[in-house]
């Protein structure tokens, strides 16, 4: 550490600088003078981040056409609070926040390894580590070849053989619309790698896919398999959770890994992976055994309580201790604390990426139901996430024909809780084995790095090799781009538009807008898609040239950026904000925030009489009608006096502890759907040969597998090794920093062992996203990718990818 002067001078090559300038005061004065510069006089352009899917509000300072700084946007609630009272009263005073990734956005924009022009592969051979032998081509060449391929498919009646993969929160509407007008049912996006399992759990329980936690007002937070203080997709989470604790809440984290959230919690409950459902059932057992439930709430607002109570009767803490490794007396205590502290919240996110995951999430949600901790301040709250409105397009006759083909993944006929994002794992498996309803020929892959995100990397490789033509749109030459026939440069979030419906509890829409021009003159993705649509001559059923015609002016617009501005304007105008794009831009922070803030007890809200008049009634439930008069969405529950209240949007209108609709139905694997939130051991269990659970998680410093080439972020945390409990390591003869082989039946990776006391002894794990072999100079060669060890399997209820269900053996390399 200590360097002598000579060494310093040698190192710096700056030995003569400053020597002899010893007039300290003069220098200090000169320096003072410099401090009066114009640094806050330049314009700060409001926008939204997209370093992850959280869409935090940002302010960007651009000087001379270059991005100079980014700072938090206090007009946008996502970076402050998910509760409106808190936001309206305190955001201006306290200021919003931004995560490290948001602060590192400048390095994504100016990444030296960014793809700058379209490339065509000249090596017909494809595979991991195979050089595509890229040849730079013009945009015209790229468009011509892509359109030619697309046209052949469509003209040959094979439009459905186009697969499209995209992000789930960026320009999805033009892509989805393109697919519809082109004629493929196979538009899929990221969500099924993320939280479609959780969505299914809560859909069963409460008919809503995404309840949010009101941490700020809570007195007890019981969180399973979630790392919200570090994996901070919603950037307000650290603030509201630490505030909740400050105001007296206890934070309990159930996780096999001692995450940063667990580290900041009052209590860490280490648990054997995939047994969270068993723990939840045992907690319910204690609550009901000791009569600690909220019986009036249960009587009024749940169905299936008796069946549920009967089911948990033998799910004793002792039973759960054997399964979960959580001591029975601790389960007893946690159950009593949770049930007797009000208000309490319970939640779970991607800890349920396992074969019992949907039921486990449902069991966890049931804890909220039996204690009445739903839709009250400080509990799980159903958000009102109304934002821009997607203006649906009508496909023409050609497209309509191939749209009737089934999705390659089987869609909602196969998966009881199918989500519109599709089932990547099923798509990959069918591409590999050719046993789908047809064999797709072409894929458009927009900002999806399947090689790094799909469970079972070797399968992803085979799947992509089985496609005739692959187009990748990305800012980086990702691992997946290496399988492309043509790759075209995309834009970063600082170079394009989007509308972001924010994940707070009341409606808010933030604008993302280009703060700098695309660095290489490339089109933004919506412009790219529009150009394809124009060249293909895709039209709506009524002949409308949707990719040419501005959606507010109705005029044919040559300039595709202007065309998209009208697209967004119409979505805003017909959506919740009811303003134009220009009006949104002019709002403080370019964020529209509904003045009708957070609402609790929404299940008690009356359904307006005029809506009810046109409703379709089934039993005591009211539904809205589709254009053709058939049942559309749930609207409310009828009361004896003929009026109706909102209720929950389940088949019964209540919280379902027993799902009657499951009886007689099967999941995608052919198993009977259970009508109760059953605990069943996950499919892949440790064996003598592969004795350890392998899990992975997210931390604040990276997003999925897409930010590892970011220079700032790589400096925060250079890589991750294999975290292994120190005692377990001894058992396998492994010392800290040893290179180890991590092997499963599907593959073998080399990792650096990191001994810790902060992981369950039966578990090894690592931060997801490392192990790139492409993407860029920084990302390459750091850490290892656990996808090689995973089985390509989806949750049979939801289609959620199960990237965390892996067993391995570990040995010194």
């Amino acid at each position, binding site marked *: 550490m*200590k360097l002598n*002067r000579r060494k*310093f*001078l040698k190192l*710096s*090559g*700056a*030995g003569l*600088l*400053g*020597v002899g*300038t*010893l007039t*300290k005061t003069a220098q*200090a004065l*000169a320096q003072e003078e*410099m401090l009066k510069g114009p*640094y806050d006089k330049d314009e700060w352009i409001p926008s939204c981040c997209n370093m992850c899917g959280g869409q935090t509000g940002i302010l960007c300072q651009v*000087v001379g056409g270059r991005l100079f700084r*980014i*700072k*938090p946007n206090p007009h946008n609630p996502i970076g402050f609070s998910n509760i409106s009272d808190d936001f309206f009263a305190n955001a201006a005073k*306290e*200021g919003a*926040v*931004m995560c*490290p990734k*948001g*602060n590192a956005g400048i*390095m994504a924009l*100016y*990444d*030296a*390894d960014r793809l700058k022009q379209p490339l065509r592969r000249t090596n017909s051979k494809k595979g991991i580590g195979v050089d595509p032998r890229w040849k730079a081509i013009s945009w015209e060449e790229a468009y011509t070849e892509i359109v030619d391929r697309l046209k052949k498919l469509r003209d040959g009646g094979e439009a459905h053989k186009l697969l499209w993969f995209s992000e789930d929160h960026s320009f999805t509407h033009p892509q989805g619309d393109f697919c519809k007008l082109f004629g493929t049912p196979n538009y899929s996006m990221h969500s099924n790698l993320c939280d479609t399992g959780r969505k299914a759990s809560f859909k069963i329980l409460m008919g809503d896919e995404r309840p949010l936690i009101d941490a700020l007002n809570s007195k007890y937070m019981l969180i399973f398999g979630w790392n919200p*203080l570090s994996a901070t997709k919603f950037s307000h989470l*650290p*603030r509201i959770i*630490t505030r909740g*604790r400050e105001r007296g809440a206890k934070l309990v984290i159930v996780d096999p890994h*001692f995450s*940063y959230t667990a*580290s*900041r919690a*009052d209590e860490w409950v280490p648990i054997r992976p995939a047994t969270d459902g068993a723990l939840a059932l045992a907690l319910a057992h204690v609550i009901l055994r000791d009569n600690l439930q909220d019986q009036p709430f249960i009587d009024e607002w749940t169905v299936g309580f008796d069946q549920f109570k009967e089911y948990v009767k033998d799910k004793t803490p002792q039973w759960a201790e054997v399964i979960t490794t959580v001591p029975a007396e*601790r389960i007893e205590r946690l159950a009593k604390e949770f049930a007797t502290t009000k208000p309490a919240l319970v939640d779970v996110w991607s800890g349920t990426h396992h074969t019992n995951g949907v039921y486990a999430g449902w069991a966890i949600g049931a804890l909220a139901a039996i204690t009445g901790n739903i839709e009250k301040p400080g509990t799980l709250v159903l958000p009102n996430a109304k934002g821009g409105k997607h203006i649906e397009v009508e496909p023409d006759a050609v497209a309509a024909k191939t749209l009737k083909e089934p999705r390659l993944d089987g869609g909602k006929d196969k998966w009881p809780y199918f989500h519109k994002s599709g089932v990547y794992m099923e798509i990959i498996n069918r591409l590999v084995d050719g046993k789908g309803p047809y064999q797709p020929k072409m894929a458009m892959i927009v900002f999806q790095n399947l090689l790094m995100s799909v469970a079972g990397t070797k399968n992803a490789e085979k799947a992509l090799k089985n496609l005739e033509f692959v187009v990748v749109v990305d800012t980086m030459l990702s691992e997946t781009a290496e399988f492309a026939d043509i790759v075209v440069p995309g834009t970063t979030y600082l170079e394009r538009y989007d509308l972001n419906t924010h994940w707070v509890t009341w409606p808010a829409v933030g604008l993302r807008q280009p703060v700098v021009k695309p*660095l290489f003159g490339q089109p933004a993705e919506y412009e790219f898609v529009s150009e394809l649509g124009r060249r293909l001559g895709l039209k709506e059923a009524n002949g409308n040239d949707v990719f040419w015609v501005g959606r507010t002016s109705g005029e044919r617009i040559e300039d595709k950026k202007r065309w998209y501005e009208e697209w967004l304007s119409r979505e805003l105008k017909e959506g919740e904000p009811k303003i134009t794009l220009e009006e949104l831009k002019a709002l403080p922070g370019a964020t529209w925030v509904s003045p009708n803030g957070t609402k609790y007890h929404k299940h008690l809200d009356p359904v307006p009489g005029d809506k009810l008049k046109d409703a379709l009634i089934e039993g005591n439930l009211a539904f809205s009608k589709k254009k053709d008069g058939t049942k559309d969405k749930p609207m409310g529950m009828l009361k004896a006096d003929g009026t109706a209240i909102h209720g929950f949007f389940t088949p019964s209108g209540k919280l379902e502890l027993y799902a009657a609709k499951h009886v007689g139905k099967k999941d995608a694997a052919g198993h009977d759907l259970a009508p109760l939130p059953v605990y069943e051991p996950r499919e892949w269990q440790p064996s003598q040969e592969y004795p350890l659970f392998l899990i992975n998680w997210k931390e*604040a*410093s990276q997003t999925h597998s897409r930010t590892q080439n970011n*220079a700032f972020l790589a*400096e*925060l945390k250079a890589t991750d090794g294999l975290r292994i*409990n120190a*005692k377990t390591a001894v058992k396998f003869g492994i010392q800290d920093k040893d290179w180890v082989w991590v092997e499963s039946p599907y593959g073998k990776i080399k990792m650096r062992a990191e001994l*810790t*006391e*902060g*992981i*369950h002894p039966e578990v090894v794990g690592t931060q997801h996203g490392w192990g790139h072999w492409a993407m860029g*100079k*920084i990302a390459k060669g750091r850490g290892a990718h656990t996808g090689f060890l995973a089985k390509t399997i989806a949750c049979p209820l939801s289609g959620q990818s199960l990237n965390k269900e892996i067993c391995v053996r570990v040995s010194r390399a």
Partner: protein
Amino acid sequence: MAQKRLTLQETVDQELGRRSFLKLAGIGVVASAIAALPAEIVEAAENFTTKKKFRYGMTIDLKRCVNCEACTAACKLENKTPPGVTYNPVIEEEVGEFPDVQRRWFPRPCFHCEKPPCIDVCPVGATYKREEDGIVLVDHDKCIGAGDCIPACPYGARIFDEGKNYPAQETEYGNIPSPEFHSKYGLREKAKAPIGNARKCTFCLHLQDASGQYTRPTACAETCMGKAIHFGDFLTGRCIGHGCNLNELITHRKWTRLKEELGTEPNVYYLL
């Protein structure tokens, strides 16, 4: 089974105590040298406490800090610091045994000490504490890269700029000056200050207006995800941008300063 929780005092001792910090930062040798700092140096440092208009400093609420490192990244973004030059890292350690394990951390900016031991060790007088607001700076017009100040800081808050660059330097990013010292040193160029100099946190001095007031908080405080870092003026207690009062916080909350025994009197208080 209840987990063992440390008492407040134990947390103070272990989380911020000298031994634990030394182990973490790997600067044990340095600190033992400082422990024997001659009394006259400490006295000299006292002279800097006069004629103050402001006493800028921070409170860092360790109950709110979640170790996200947004402060570290925000500092890099704001000051355009090169690889290896990190003004505000988060120091972390793990203690205990499974399942009674704890992980502790704290962000570590420069503390802009009242009695900074980094100043008088400089052979050319390049490092100084501003009388008017207490900010400790390196004058890059004078710094010769002697490096004596680096081990003199018992907190490891000074870093040598070896002249490394991010790959982005070859892009448009290379044409963006650091706003540090109001871009006085212009674009980053080989063999030009501050390359070859000691560098450190300036409390984002360039965010001050002509009167010495801040118009926005330091980048680390502004971005902080838990709103744990409050930056402001201890003479009035005024916190910049977070609507609280620093003096009220240190009056009502338990706090500690790192290595109090060295007499450096840091202007950064860790709230416990």
